């Protein structure tokens, strides 16, 4: 397939000008997927904290605490890679998306700062920063949806497209809530899990509607993509993906229903299925867009920086990637499974007047 592509472009497959943008595209896509999925449950739990009763909220946030450090960096990495590897698409993408990007920046700023400040502030101020974190997560989720909707319709901004963006924002919110609650179902027991099941049930249909809506609009507003799906050698792939998506949504729904009615065991099934949904949706998007960065306009080869700069960035990335991988695997490998809340340490009862002064 790679040699086909290379001959179509009229270059040698071993030419760095050909394969370097491909490598960076793969890296960028991996970072986007990692960012959406791993930061996703973070955002989702943050959004759900708005609806949770006040006494459960601190527990939800402390569940997130170990991954905040790693999670807040995906967006940085993605942006940095995008700007340094594809400077010629940067302008036309960033220039069009001022408002959603503004929203995204505000949301991310608010949530990452409030989380850390909450950790370090005295008891009476903590609920304030907790609200800030939840609000920031909400804004971030909406902004992700707006961005996706805008990218799918190639930045058109008529009235109808505006409502599509709103729909995209809301369904992204639902999808993140679903991911967050599925994670909570796997992660905790007790009241929080029971509530997470209810949240998940409310979110799952909206998320499904969003996934379908985005794909349909993507297909019908861009003839090229519709052709790519329905025609040519790849249509079995498209059909398989659709069937998988349907199966995932149905099984999540059934599992949640069962958890309400009969079973009350720890299960990772909804989380794994939701992960699968995210992977399929993102994979489908990536497949539809390739090799364009801006649909039907800028390919990754048009957008790439000069080979010298790319080589330099690649060298930096090769140094950084092992570090990133080791660090992330080390951090994330405990993400799965049931978490048991830490109990406060038991202090020895100190007998009064024993051994002099007790400060």
């Amino acid at each position, binding site marked *: 397939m790679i040699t086909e592509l290379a001959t179509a472009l009229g270059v040698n497959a071993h030419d760095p000008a050909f394969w370097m943008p491909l490598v960076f595209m793969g890296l960028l896509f991996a970072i986007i997927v990692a960012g959406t999925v791993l930061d996703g449950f973070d955002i989702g739990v943050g959004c759900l904290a708005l609806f949770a009763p006040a006494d459960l909220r601190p527990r939800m946030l402390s569940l997130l605490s170990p991954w905040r450090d790693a999670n807040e960096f995906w967006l940085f990495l993605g942006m940095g890679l995008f700007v340094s590897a594809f400077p010629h698409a940067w302008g036309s993408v960033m220039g069009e998306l001022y408002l959603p990007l503004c929203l995204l920046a505000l949301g991310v700023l608010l949530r990452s700062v409030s989380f850390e400040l909450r950790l370090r502030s005295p008891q009476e101020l903590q609920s304030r*920063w907790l609200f800030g974190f939840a609000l920031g997560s909400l804004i971030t989720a909406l902004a992700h949806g707006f961005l996706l909707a805008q990218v799918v319709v190639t930045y058109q901004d008529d009235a109808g497209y505006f409502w599509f963006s709103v729909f995209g924002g809301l369904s992204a919110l639902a999808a993140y809530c679903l991911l967050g609650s599925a994670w909570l179902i796997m992660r905790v027991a007790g009241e929080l899990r029971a509530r997470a099941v209810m949240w998940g049930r409310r979110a799952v249909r909206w998320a499904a509607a969003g996934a379908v809506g985005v794909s349909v609009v993507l297909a019908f507003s861009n003839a090229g993509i519709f052709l790519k799906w329905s025609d040519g050698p790849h249509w079995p792939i498209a059909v398989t993906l659709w069937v998988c998506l349907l199966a995932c949504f149905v099984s999540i729904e059934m599992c949640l229903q069962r958890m309400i009615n009969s079973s009350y065991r720890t299960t990772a099934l909804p989380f794994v299925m939701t992960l699968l949904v995210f992977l399929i949706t993102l994979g489908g998007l990536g497949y539809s867009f390739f090799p364009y960065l801006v649909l039907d306009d800028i390919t990754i080869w048009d957008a790439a920086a000069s080979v010298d700069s790319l080589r330099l960035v690649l060298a930096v990335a090769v140094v950084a990637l092992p570090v990133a991988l080791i660090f992330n695997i080390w951090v994330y490998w405990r993400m799965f499974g049931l978490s048991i809340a830490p109990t406060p340490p038991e202090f020895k009862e100190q007998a009064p007047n024993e051994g002099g002064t007790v400060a």
Partner: protein
Amino acid sequence: MLLFLVIELGLAWVLLYFKVRSLGADNAPWTEAYRFWVRVFALAFVLSLASGMPVLIQFGSLWPALMEKIGNVAGPLLAAAILSTFIFKSCFLGAMLFGQRYVSDRVHALLVLMVAMGVLISCFCLLVLVSWMHTPAGVNWTEGQYHVLDWWTVLFNPSLPWYAAIFVLASALTVGFLMLGVGAAQALRRPVNESERFVFRTAVYIACVATVLQGLAVAGSGQVTAQYQPAKAAATAAYWRSGPQADLVLFAVPDEQAAANRLAWTWRNAGSYWLQRDDSGNLRGLDRYAGMAPPVGLTFWSFRLALLVGLVMALVALITLRRTRRAHYDPGALSRGWRHVLAWMTFSGWVLLLAGLAYMFFGSFPYAVTGTVTVSEIMGDIHFDALLGGYIAYLVLYGVLLLGFFQLLRHIARYGVVPIARRRGRA
């Protein structure tokens, strides 16, 4: 972002000093100082890292066409800055903040050193980018974009040493005055302990040395500005008509319509040093740059403001040194009024920084990259309402976060630091 970046950079090195001193014999007060200021460092780090994202996004969406032109230079620099932040954050910072109990003291000191190095490297990458945009070197401008000829020349472009010196000294000044202000404010409420006196001593010395060096650095960088950005130099000096000699304008109201200074208070024939001479030996005035000169009033005034704040800071630092030298550097030995002055000047470093930043930005106008790319040709076409709304939202959010920072700083200055724990991969 920059406001907290300077605190972060300065404090990282001050913390290293505290940490190294706490390895010595007399360790208790130094450990206590480290404990207190590491919290301030953590807060500043959180804020500067988180607000780096909006800066990057704003940079992209306000000036979308810029990266197309300078992408080959700026791309690797930005990548290096982000990745070095990533590496030092993920490898060293977590261990420094939360892992002190698990490593020996010496290893922990090494971690603090690595964090300080990491902050310095990230700042260096950003400084290279900014200074290169002001004095491009080592590149080839063809077909509307830059191609790198020699990375070494790009990295060490003519203005880099001066910009780096000014930035590092500004961060030292900011941190010095922050520590002075906090110490003085504590001394207003209660007698300070030994550790706080040590901090105060460190801060007095940092502030004194940094102000003096800052003056030298600004004077030196004026030469580079005159050579590479003559229009900026002429605007700074408010020098309108070219001629053989220039007065040093200390105070004036520059009038762009009349191309003259009103209410001028000058020092005769002393300003020639910071202006560029043309081939015939005449100084270049603003009349040589019709239409391509920076806004004179803003450039002139932001520079004067920065200078004024710097002078006040130098004066305050030296007087504080003189008054506390005999009193074991105890802020309690100062008069109440002077302690109030110091407390008010806690964030004077930020004023200096903002004025200097405004000077750098307005002074290089109308160019974004000196000599080739103007600001107007890379501006995006964003609707004015959207822009205004975005700005208001940013202002409100930054206001809230700044308030949160002040509140926490006040709280720990009053009641002390309560340590927090976090373990990776566990909840």
